[in-house]
């Protein structure tokens, strides 16, 4: 009974938090003056202007996905299948663009390739191009795709590396008996990990489709920026909702496609880490090529953008000024993100438990249903929350005018993510460990407290830190819902970007980068000391 009540409550909580605002928002957009009307939708779907915006969004997502797949699959392969020098160093560095907010990389590249940027002048000089051509590139869909792929390629890299490392060596070894290693790679290894790579590609496509920060920074006309403009500039929330509609539909189609494609694909090859390592490639030219590729990616994705931001700052006074300007934002960000991460970890644990450990008819559909909401664009969530909470009544006004609306925004955005992380950790705890507890007469809470929580400890810490990092960088939802006096650091940065000197903007970007990388650094340093409990149950 404890179990049913707690889990039902957590799922209802998820529905109210994530589902209800969106349903409410769409419901409102088709109901006007006491009758149903699809006027806004007709305008969106049948006017050339919006078709162009939809096409722009799809082009941005497609190019980003292609570039990310190219870089991610190659990097994942080199990490898993070769012994390149400094592999671990490269891997940690490649994490950085995924963790720091995309707009900080965007700001750096705009600084470099914008009209008076250092790289712009150099390229214009050596390639005999006009300065405008180069700056037009960075302010185009292609430029946005370039920056977004820097931000998102680590997703595909991680998926590729993980699946290659966890691929049972017996599949490759049985191929090696009859064929060369490259033949095995082409005919056996790659086909076996294709489902995992496709899954990574889908995630990147959906994330780039719903990205707000980069298109907004580069003034690219895509669906997410249009939603924001309609809402903030024209106060036309119904039109904003109607623009969000194709975005949601495309996202749902992609997730359903992914579900159908992956359904029944043999993922048993990606079970526990095999006892032996998968085969490695020691070809000399491959190692040389890999090292050059890694160095190139490192420069493009990490060194150049971070160095640009640091060099832009020039004096420590800029840091001081930036701190003064963003002091409140920094304090707010740390406070809100800590609260948000704590709630997210707790709720994610319960939902993860529900979708992984509880047997019921709609189990598989539930985890897919929860995951779908990760693809909902931040701006859509923001409008949904405003529609639902901005109304008379003490409860609503108390929430809407306080930090809690921001926390609810974080929850609505990242609950699917925290659920997914916890689910993956919970997968490693065999059912029998809990059953062994419950057969002794222990209650569900006792089993949870003494068996599941301790075994899930690493997962809980990891979830909290990842949620904290994501909350710190969150912009799309917060920018719509934050009450006066509750601005976070990303909002301060976005507000001052247009009319503050470059050094202050860069200093603020570096502060955000530092605040996101610090928890990661702490985690990496302490994770060695956290006793890793190997589940050495005889199987």
């Amino acid at each position, binding site marked *: 009974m404890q179990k049913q009540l707690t889990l039902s409550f957590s799922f209802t909580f998820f529905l109210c938090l994530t589902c209800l605002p969106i349903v409410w928002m769409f419901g409102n957009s088709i109901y006007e003056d006491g009758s149903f009307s699809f006027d806004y939708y007709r305008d969106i779907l049948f006017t050339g202007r919006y078709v162009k915006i939809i096409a722009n969004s799809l082009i941005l997502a497609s190019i980003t996905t292609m570039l990310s797949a190219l870089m991610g699959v190659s990097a994942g392969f080199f990490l898993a299948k070769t012994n390149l020098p400094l592999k671990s160093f490269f891997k940690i560095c490649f994490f950085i663009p995924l963790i720091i907010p995309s707009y900080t990389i965007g700001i750096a590249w705009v600084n470099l390739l914008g009209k008076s940027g250092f790289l712009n002048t150099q390229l214009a000089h050596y390639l005999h191009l006009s300065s405008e051509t180069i700056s037009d590139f960075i302010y185009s869909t292609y430029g946005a795709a370039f920056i977004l792929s820097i931000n998102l390629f680590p997703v595909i890299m991680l998926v590729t590396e993980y699946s290659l490392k966890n691929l049972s060596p017996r599949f490759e070894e049985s191929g090696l008996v009859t064929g060369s290693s490259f033949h095995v790679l082409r005919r056996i290894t790659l086909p076996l990990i294709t489902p995992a790579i496709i899954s990574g590609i889908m995630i990147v496509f959906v994330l780039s489709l719903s990205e707000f920060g980069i298109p907004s920074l580069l003034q690219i006309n895509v669906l997410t920026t249009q939603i924001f403009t309609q809402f903030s500039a024209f106060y036309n929330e119904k039109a904003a909702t109607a623009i969000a509609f194709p975005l949601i539909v495309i996202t749902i189609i992609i997730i359903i496609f992914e579900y159908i494609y992956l359904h029944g694909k043999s993922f048993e090859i990606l079970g526990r880490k095999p006892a032996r390592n998968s085969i490695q490639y020691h070809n000399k030219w491959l190692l040389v090529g890999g090292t050059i590729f890694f160095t190139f990616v490192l420069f493009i994705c990490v060194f150049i953008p971070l160095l640009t931001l640091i060099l832009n700052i020039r004096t420590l006074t800029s840091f001081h000024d930036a701190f003064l300007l963003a002091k409140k934002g920094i304090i707010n960000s740390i406070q809100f993100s800590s609260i948000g991460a704590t709630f997210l970890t707790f709720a994610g644990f319960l939902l993860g438990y529900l979708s992984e450990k509880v047997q019921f008819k709609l189990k598989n559909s539930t985890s897919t249903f929860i995951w779908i909401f990760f693809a909902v664009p931040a701006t859509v969530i923001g409008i949904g929350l405003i529609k639902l909470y901005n109304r008379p009544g003490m409860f609503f006004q108390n929430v809407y005018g306080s930090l809690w609306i921001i926390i609810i925004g974080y929850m609505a955005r990242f609950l699917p993510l925290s659920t997914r992380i916890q689910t993956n950790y919970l997968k490693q705890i065999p059912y029998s460990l809990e059953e062994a507890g419950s057969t002794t007469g222990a209650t569900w809470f006792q089993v949870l407290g003494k068996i599941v929580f301790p075994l899930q400890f690493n997962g809980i810490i990891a979830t909290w830190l990842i949620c904290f990092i994501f909350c710190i960088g969150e912009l799309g939802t917060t920018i719509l819902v934050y009450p006066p006096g509750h601005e976070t650091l990303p909002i301060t940065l976005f507000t001052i970007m247009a009319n503050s000197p470059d050094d202050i903007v860069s200093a603020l970007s570096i502060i955000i980068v530092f605040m996101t990388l610090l928890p990661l650094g702490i985690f990496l340093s302490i994770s060695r000391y956290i006793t890793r409990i190997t589940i050495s149950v005889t*199987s």
Partner: protein
Amino acid sequence: MQEKKATMHALEVKQLTKSFQGKEIVKGISLTVERGQLLALLGPSGCGKTTTLRMIAGLEIPDNGEIWIDGTIANRGNKILIPQKQRHIGMVFQDLALWPHMKVYENIEFGLSANKIPRAERKKKIEEVLNKVNMQKYSREYPGRLSGGQQQLIAIARAIVTEPKLLLMDEPLSNIDIRLREEIRQEIRRIQHETQITTVYVTQDQEDAFLLASKVAVMNKGIIEQTGTPEEIYNSPISPFIAHFIGESNMINIKVLGKDRVLTPWGELDCNTKGRSAGNAILFFRPHQAKIEKGGQYEGVIISRDFIGGVYRYHILTSGENILLEDNNFYESEHKVRFTFDKKEILPF
């Protein structure tokens, strides 16, 4: 109000059924276990034995049927009358499920503290049970540091420390090597004998079942085909499946001609047909139930010979049938021999 019965078996299962995704896994099984008895539920993988055990433990909810524990009804159909945690059951899982983050002492203590046993009493009980399984010196170790056999004993200690009404064991020996298996089997027998805990032991290994259990229920495709002592199951199987599943066997297609008269590949024979009507049937005998002898009734040619330690096993071609015989003497292949049956059974076709 709990429903109680006057005639009390330690465990009684009546017409239990369970389906998963429309497929019936357990098809109406019934069994009884007396106090202090060890019943082995023996069958091939996928026959429904673990599902049955999990329903008794309360880890699965049956679709139909009843489970009575110690004269009290635990469930009627899918209605749970005694929740799982109040059934006072100890269970040893196939993967043992020792909690890796707890030391041996804490693993055993968990069930006692969950049942609010005072600390001093807990300590006493844990010491006693560790003595019983001869594992006193490992109480402060983590399970991951113990050998496979030691982990087995700790899993048993954890299951019996709460003095359960019923001990359920789900193939606990399936993952350990043959030598250790024999040792642990002896330990299980000793512990069960000393504690007299009523036990249901699920296994697909005939040797485990025969050496440990006083009563064996053989399951196949969701039903219990035969229940009896190990001797009854081995010597008088009542179905071709059991004859084939338990040990080596010879099964030859024959025809029942009338009362105690059958037509075999060797001609007509007198044989106890156990009231079977005329029609197709199977003649069954074990390899050791026929012997090679000079004046034997039937003739055959040795096709091949295996030495299986102590005796030879011969594959003999006789009247178009291949049969297996065991004999202490050495005979060359392609040698003509004569043989007779000591004992034979007629099984349904």
